[in-house]
């Protein structure tokens, strides 16, 4: 009997294999479109980002599956948390995630998002991403190769197509839970406090 992550991944994948999906034809059609076209937020939040360029460029060409990059959170469907997630990054990820428009999905990359990975005893890195943000799909490995990332995307597409990838609803329903966890590591003020002094310098803009 597997414990921990392996078990949870089984549960996640178990959903994929079940056939009992209830969606009307309009939803079915829309989910089909959503599944066919996935815009990924092109932010690298950790070391795993190094595997993303080959995934999206000529070598592995994710665009053939309808997966392409988006520069702003407003236009993205999927945010990839690529690897270890320090408090400072987490703050930005939360902010970005909240700026994305529904429906939105979260793909977590690498062992660090699963259980802290090699940073399991780091004072500055969270261990379990799903405590702070809802995760649709984990792709494990350190680092996962582009093939596994694509596999993760295909699994996510399947979930979207069946209308089961509904983490954004989960986030809205259990907002207090997530908020509590976020505040526990980030302090009371979750939004980043920010001073843009580089704007004022000459030559910038």
């Amino acid at each position, binding site marked *: 009997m597997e*414990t*921990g*992550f*392996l*078990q949870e991944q089984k549960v996640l994948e178990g959903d994929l294999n079940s056939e009992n999906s209830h969606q009307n034809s309009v939803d079915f059609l829309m989910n089909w479109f959503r599944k066919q076209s996935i815009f990924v937020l092109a932010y690298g939040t950790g070391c795993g980002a190094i595997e993303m360029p080959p995934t999206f460029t000529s070598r592995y060409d994710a665009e053939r599956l309808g997966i392409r990059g988006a520069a702003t959170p407003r236009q993205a469907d999927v945010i990839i948390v690529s690897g270890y997630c320090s*408090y*400072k990054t987490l*703050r930005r990820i939360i902010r970005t995630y909240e700026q994305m428009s529904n429906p939105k999905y979260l793909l977590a990359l690498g062992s660090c998002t*699963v*259980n*802290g990975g090699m940073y*399991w*005893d*780091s*004072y*500055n890195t*969270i*261990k*379990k991403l799903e*405590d702070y943000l809802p995760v649709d799909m984990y792709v494990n490995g350190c680092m996962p190769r582009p093939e596994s990332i694509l596999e993760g995307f295909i699994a996510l597409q399947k979930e979207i197509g069946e209308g089961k990838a509904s983490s954004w609803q989960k986030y809205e329903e259990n907002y207090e839970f997530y908020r509590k966890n976020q505040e*526990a*590591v*980030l*302090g009371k*003020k979750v939004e*980043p406090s920010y001073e843009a002094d580089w704007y004022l310098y000459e030559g910038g803009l």
Partner: protein
Amino acid sequence: MFSEIKNRFATDDVEVKRKGLYKVVVKHERLFALIVMLKEMYDYKTLNTITCTDWIEEGHFALTYIMTTLKRNETFMLQTMILREEAHTKSLSYLFKQAQIMERDLHEMYGIKFEGNENLKELSLENWVHTPPLRREFDTLEFVNNHLTFRDGRDDNIDTKAESKRLRAIKKAEKEAAKKAKESKKAEDVQ
């Protein structure tokens, strides 16, 4: 130069680590005079970095200023000790601009106060309220256990070192058994 440093700053001998790499330990109050002298008279125009070592047993921090001259390709390490309790020293940012960010880092990680540095806000942490994390009294593991939740399943994780040792032993035993079997077979064949 070395004798002058020794005489004027009453230090030990300048230690020559290897060719072009020197180290000297100076008293804290004479450090800045020495830095100025090195910069102005001996062309040590570059401040590479400022490092800190936490000697918790002796109750002080060892601050090391590493300076380089490109003219002769020589590097000078100036070490000084400051007390751990309410650690503070003067800022070097009026001499070297880059010192500001180095000091910001040290302030954040060790809690050393640099008088004269105007920009001592946090560098890579945000809203950190606990002990500065690189001080040795800060117990990382304890902090993690207190503040963060682990995923279940880490409890049964195995010591990889021991495990690999065990596996290697098993493999070795198997190999030897196979070898033995082979040899006995050979012996039988011969017979």
